[in-house]
């Protein structure tokens, strides 16, 4: 019966190319959708970490401004004594961080750095930077940069 049925949709030569095009197109759609959803998920996680880094950097700057009571700007000494590691750890919400505050002037070699110890591969990162003024030991007011890198394992 099959051999004499001439109203069939296609023969062998049409079936395979059709199947290949359909399967290839479907695979393309599925793979690009999966890749994009993964990337968007990573970007969303990065965006949340970025927001956390921005909030934390603002909190650090507010903290530094609050310790400059009496002076117009914080001094290097008051920044070093501000218990920043504990403060940043409380703000970080279990994320790992590296905080660096450094004077940007080329003839002022002052910097201070804190980081949380972590091992393992880094999955998502966030970064925030703020500029503040701080006073050195001789009373000069310098521009300092607060750099905060946040990541999750």
């Amino acid at each position: 019966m099959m051999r004499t049925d001439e109203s069939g949709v296609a023969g062998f030569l049409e079936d395979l190319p059709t199947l290949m095009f359909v399967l290839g197109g479907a695979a393309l759609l599925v793979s690009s959708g999966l890749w994009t959803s993964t990337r968007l998920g990573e970007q969303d996680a990065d965006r949340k970490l970025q927001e956390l880094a921005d909030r934390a950097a603002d909190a650090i700057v507010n903290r530094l401004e609050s310790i400059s009571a009496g002076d117009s700007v914080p001094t290097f000494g008051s920044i070093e004594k501000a218990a920043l590691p504990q403060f940043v750890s409380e703000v970080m919400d279990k994320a790992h961080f590296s905080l660096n505050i450094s004077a940007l002037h080329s003839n002022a070699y002052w910097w201070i750095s804190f980081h949380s110890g972590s091992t393992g591969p880094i999955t998502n990162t966030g970064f925030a930077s703020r500029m503040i003024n701080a006073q050195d030991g001789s009373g000069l007011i310098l521009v300092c940069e607060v750099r905060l890198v946040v990541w999750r394992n």
Partner: protein
Amino acid sequence: MDEGQLAVFDAVVFFAGAILISSVILALPGHQTISNESCWNSVRAAELLDGLLSSSIGTNITIGLELPVIVPSRTSIRDCLAVEGAYLFTGGESDGFGPLNSIIMGLLEDCAPPFLDAHLMLVYRSFSEPLLALPHAPDDMSKRTATSTTMTLEDGSELLVVLVLCPSSPSELVQLRGADLHLLPGVPLPSKEVDV
């Protein structure tokens, strides 16, 4: 065209449509990254200008006017620019302010991001040409980030301090910056690093 060929044709159209849709889907994550970068620069420019104007010049200098003016090292750049702006506004020449302008340019280079060229200008509202441009007025005004603040002089005149950040040319990015010297071996590191 028989039905078999029509089926192949439909499959090819589906495949072409899948390529088109996939390219659109794959382009989605890239657009969001670009918008985040452009936002960061404008915020930084305002912070940079405010921080720079509030900082000290760091060196005692003498401004060579008719009567030499001694400027102590703790004087803020904002006050220095106010004096220079008032002088230039009355028609004076900027020659005597050379040492001060060199210091301001040095601080600007130290504090600006290494991938951006920073230009600081003093502009009076009524004039289109800046009274002062350090190191010079920017040539390429495309892709720039600008911020400004108003400075009131003693006579009540208002000057605009404008900071323009332009992308650096690639050849300038390989130059070592003064601010990066503390990363080189042999340079003293008086500060401390702490594990939390």
